[in-house]
């Protein structure tokens, strides 16, 4: 009994300490980084992997980034096996070799004890620019990865504690804001250093073998939980389909198909039947597709399962080569972490929702909005910004309305949208409005969140914008008889007063000072039959200008009088069943 309580405490302490260390790394990165995409939007992830590259712990950051750390480290392990030394730091971004897309740079720092690598600390973060044909590196017209930016295979950035300046120079020479990129690489290196420092203390307290043993237990524990959860689902093949608008060249929707095969305590996500790879940058390479599939499945399996490599072991992913979800090098892939990563998850949700008792939300808004860049007339410095404040909204669930202003599924709960105040200090533009838009929420017993109308007046001389995103043709789906949400819509109003409607994927446009950009983002899909919605809630939505009186009548069968719900007329309409 004496031994047991200590063992229980130690296991819990070590497990929680790992999570705390990754959190501390995340905090260091957020607090010390320079580009707004890091510091304000938190577009990064941190994790700890064991010496084999298995992910042990990660922060609750951007879902699609975090799990990818294991692939990056496995590439380092493969290439540098036996040559990794204390004082090394590795860098990597190649989507065909352990990365997601080029702007996401992985920084990897090993912890070596007695010539053995016990842990790797990894931080992966989205940098504002990584070169290529357009600033911001979302090049909607790229047809090869070479046009998307600088490609970094796993290489050493630091050796014996010293930055290899030749490597740093080569990288910074190829991007548009070298100083910021260099500072942010420092922030990543620093965050890893914090992680390694804390892990050393942990090993010092509990001995390397104790810590290694515990880490093994943690992975097994997560695998056990995953398999248990799969076992509780009925055996069978469940099919889900989702569509991407287009690839920016040919304008037909592109299909993603998944067959979820459940057999006992094993699950296979088979993407055979998905359309072939395309010309534009909506292809999703192996790492991004696998990660998206894992997190999509785990969402259905339960929130208590730790998101580590142990959990991933229970889920097999089959990605047909040459398809949209596993294209051949050098197909362009930059949009993949948003679209189609979110649509891969969406297809899995639709497949698993057909199982009785599995409750997943209706469709979410997709990302759609420009990057903007130029010289800031206030400082004469180059800047790149993104329309993070144009996020779409969440789908309704079986027990509540969808929340407005949620990141697309691949980034759900990880992106923190910047305050308008922070944005205006950062960029030369004036925000004219940022509010929910009436009649955008997908109707349902539990409706989707309302979409956002976001308008900014550009004050750059000029401002260049590149449209990227999706969801102008395919809306967020409605679930369980709910209706779909609204489509994304983007327009500019020129100084001359002309209104131009923009497509979701465009090449660079140069806009004069005073041009107004407006994004109306998607409302989320509705869950359940709208006629089942409590009329009082419908009335509150009317009062709050989420929907109009007409919408209340058409979609919900609720008639609104002077003082709220006209109960007699509503009962009459709803019982009449005349939809």
């Amino acid at each position, binding site marked *: 009994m004496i031994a047991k309580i200590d063992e229980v405490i130690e296991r819990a302490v070590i497990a929680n300490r790992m999570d705390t260390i990754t959190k501390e790394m995340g905090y260091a990165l957020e607090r010390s980084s320079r580009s707004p995409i890091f510091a304000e939007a938190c577009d990064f992830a941190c994790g700890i992997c064991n010496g084999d590259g298995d992910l042990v712990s990660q922060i609750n950051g951007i879902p699609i980034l975090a799990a990818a750390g294991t692939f990056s480290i496995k590439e380092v392990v493969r290439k540098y096996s036996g040559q990794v030394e204390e004082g090394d730091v590795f860098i990597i971004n190649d989507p065909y070799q352990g990365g997601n897309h080029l702007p996401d740079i992985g920084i990897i720092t090993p912890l070596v004890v007695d010539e053995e690598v016990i842990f790797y600390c990894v931080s992966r973060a989205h940098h504002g620019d990584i070169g290529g044909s357009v600033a911001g590196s979302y090049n909607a017209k790229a047809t090869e990865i070479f046009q998307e930016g600088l490609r970094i295979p796993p290489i050493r950035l630091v050796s014996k504690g010293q930055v290899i300046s030749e490597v740093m120079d080569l990288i910074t020479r190829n991007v548009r804001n070298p100083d910021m990129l260099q500072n942010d690489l420092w922030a990543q290196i620093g965050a890893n250093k914090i992680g390694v420092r804390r892990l050393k203390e942990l090993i010092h307290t509990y001995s390397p073998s104790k810590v290694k043993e515990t880490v093994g237990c943690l992975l097994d524990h997560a695998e056990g939980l995953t398999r248990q959860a799969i076992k509780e689902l009925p055996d069978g093949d469940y099919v889900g389909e989702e569509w991407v608008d287009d690839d920016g060249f040919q304008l037909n929707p592109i299909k993603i198909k998944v067959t979820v095969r459940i057999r006992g305590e094993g699950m296979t996500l088979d993407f055979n039947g998905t359309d072939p790879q395309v010309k534009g940058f909506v292809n999703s390479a192996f790492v991004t597709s696998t990660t998206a599939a894992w997190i999509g499945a785990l969402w259905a399996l339960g929130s208590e399962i730790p998101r580590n490599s142990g959990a991933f072991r229970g889920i097999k992913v089959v990605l047909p080569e040459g398809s949209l979800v596993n294209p051949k090098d050098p197909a362009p892939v930059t949009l993949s972490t948003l679209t189609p990563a979110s649509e891969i998850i969406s297809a899995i949700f639709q497949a698993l929702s057909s199982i009785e008792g599995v409750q997943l939300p209706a469709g979410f808004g997709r990302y759609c909005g420009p990057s903007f860049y130029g010289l800031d007339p206030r400082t004469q410095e180059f800047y790149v910004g993104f329309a993070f404040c144009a996020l779409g909204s969440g789908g309704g669930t079986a027990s509540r309305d969808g929340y407005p202003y949620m990141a697309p599924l691949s980034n759900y709960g990880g992106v923190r949208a910047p*305050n308008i105040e922070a944005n205006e200090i950062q960029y030369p533009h004036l925000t004219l409005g940022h509010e929910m838009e009436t009649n955008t929420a997908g109707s349902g017993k539990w409706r989707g969140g309302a979409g956002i109308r976001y308008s900014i007046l550009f004050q750059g001389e000029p401002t260049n914008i590149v449209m990227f995103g999706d969801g102008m043709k395919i809306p967020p789906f409605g679930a369980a008889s709910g209706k779909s949400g609204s489509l994304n819509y983007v327009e500019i109003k020129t100084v001359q007063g002309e209104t131009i409607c923009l497509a979701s994927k465009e090449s660079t446009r140069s806009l004069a000072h005073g041009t107004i950009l407006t994004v109306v983002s998607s409302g989320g899909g509705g869950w359940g039959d709208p006629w089942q919605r409590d009329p009082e809630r419908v009335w509150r939505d009317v009062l709050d200008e989420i929907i109009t009186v007409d919408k209340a009548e058409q979609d919900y069968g609720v008639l609104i009088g002077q003082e709220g719900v006209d109960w007699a007329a509503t009962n009459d309409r709803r019982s009449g069943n005349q939809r």
Partner: protein
Amino acid sequence: MFIVAVDVGGTFADFIVCDEGGCAATAKIPSSIENPLQPIIRGLNELAEQFNIPLEEFLAQTEKFTHGTTVGINALLQGQGAKTALITTEGFRDALELRRSRLNEQWDFSVSLPSVLVPRHLRIGLRERMDYRGVSVKPVDRTQIPMLAEFLRQEEVEAVAVCLLFACRNPKHEVEFKEHLQELLPNVFVTLSSELSSQLGEYERTSTTVLNARLSPILGNYLQDLRAHLRAKGLRVPISIAQNNGGLTDLTQAGRRAVNTLFSGPAGGVKGGWILAREQGLSDLVVGDMGGTSFDVSLIRQGMMELTPQAEIAGYPVQLPMLNIHTVGAGGGSIAWLDKGGMLKVGPQSAGAKPGPACYELGGQEPTITDAALIMGLIDDRSFLGGRMVLNKELAYASIEKNIAKPLGLSVPEAAYAIYQVALSLMADAVYLMTVKKGYDPRSFALAAVGGALPLFATALAKGVGIRQVVVPELAPVFCAQGLFHSNFQFEGLRNLYEVLGEVPFLSWSKAMLELRFQADEELSRLGVGEDQREYRWSADLKYPDQHHEINIPVRGIVSDPEIWPQLAKEFHEAHERLYGYCQPEKSLVLVNLRLVAQEKERLPQSAMDPRIEESFINANSIAGENNTALPTSIEMKMVYLHGGFRKVEVFHWKDLRNGMDLRGPALIKKEYTTILLEENCQAKLDEAKNLIINIGKDRH
């Protein structure tokens, strides 16, 4: 002459009175949510009786009156508050609901976010605009205000929160709007974001402002009532109110700043823990406080109270510095219940003081932790609250039998024991969250067990989380009140500078310094703090130019010293390296804010002012005694349900405990307002300050 501290919690109001000779009297009275005043009057009457003088004379002789209150947080947790409207810049009325798309739980879609405190139709956009520099680019459209005021009147709005874009850079538009609106609606409480916070970030600032608007009218009314009552009864001195940061303020300020007092009571507990740690020479202490409603955990680390620059209260961001306290709904009044699957749960609902636990005989039907403790024999039906309240054991029995024991097929004592264990696990999780989850090993901490209920759980809790020593202070049951007693008036101020940190301070630094100092002195004078009783702590928020977050660096030495800037820069680079793993000494720095905390000097006993904080534990063997190792005589043997059955346990009375004794568990130690359960293999000694020091042994079964 008396000094009085009153801490009103969710279930009990605690009182401490000190006279020239130190602590002279304590009291504990059930609190009342409907009439929060009544227990205060009752308690004060009881204290006066203890001194054999009438209440009027007692209050007339009171020289200082400090008060911690839960009126604000109770209202928030129960979804109450003034009907509030929110005024924003036109086009931006949804920041409160959009929440920067933040989620605390990203892997569970069924989790609900806390409700939006102002419905959309009461969020109104004002035609005005400040730009990022704080320059007005669109003046306030005054023609809009009369219509807006009329709408607010029709809607019977009681409070208005105003948070305009960039008011943190220039509050002019907010101030102008308020002046105009108050002319039209003189009786509505208006709170401006710029009065509360000068920090950038409209979402967090709006949330803070809305909480303040919603809760201040409720707190303000209560405090006015309290003042009127106590004045009528002869109180001559002003009442001081405890704030979230551990400092005190006066009643007027508190009534306008409810958001600053949400953790008023628990803050007293942290302060009390800090004093205990100093007196005992402990560096690391978990302060566990369990009263009737909740279990609050805070830490003293390396001899310091933990402050957090901003926090979340009930899921709402508050952009103000406060003590770091974690709360779970496990108190003596927490209700035990079965979920749909027949799983036993405890809390977070509390029966409070009324109807209270079933055994109170006040109409409570549901079983609580107190009922379970009564059935287990841990507490007595005749000596609860010092014998002021007789508990009805049959009602406790019947309630546990009907709601828990029968459905689960357990005996009633077994069910009571199960309730105790479930409550214990909730408390262990809370301690884990504050220690293990932050990477601190609980085995290096001692546990201060305070509040009326924790001493019943403390040794079991310590065993469960691996803590090796428990301290039960003599004043454990009224510990928060004791902390309040030691609290000081405090002022915090900040000036936004946003300039490059050069070699020597600019004029703006001196100007900001003088302004802050003036503001602080004005406030401290208003609060009656003498000039020789003031302490000033300066600090600066610094960052590299293109960063988004700052590091707070304390100003060591004299703030007007021209050498101060290079020193600040040096410390910044060092802190950056320590916190973030790198630094760039070749880069220039931006000075974002100058901060000042001005407070009344600590009035602690000399021993506590000279902390010996290198120790983790008190060496119980070194406790000096009267060489009287004889055990006190037990007052009775009692049947107590422990580990699977009733067994005979010796019961002692606190007043019979002697220095030098070595008391081993299992045993119960009865004390006015609390009972300490000393589990098997635990060993208790009394130190000179009359704190019970319990060393936790390991179980061998």
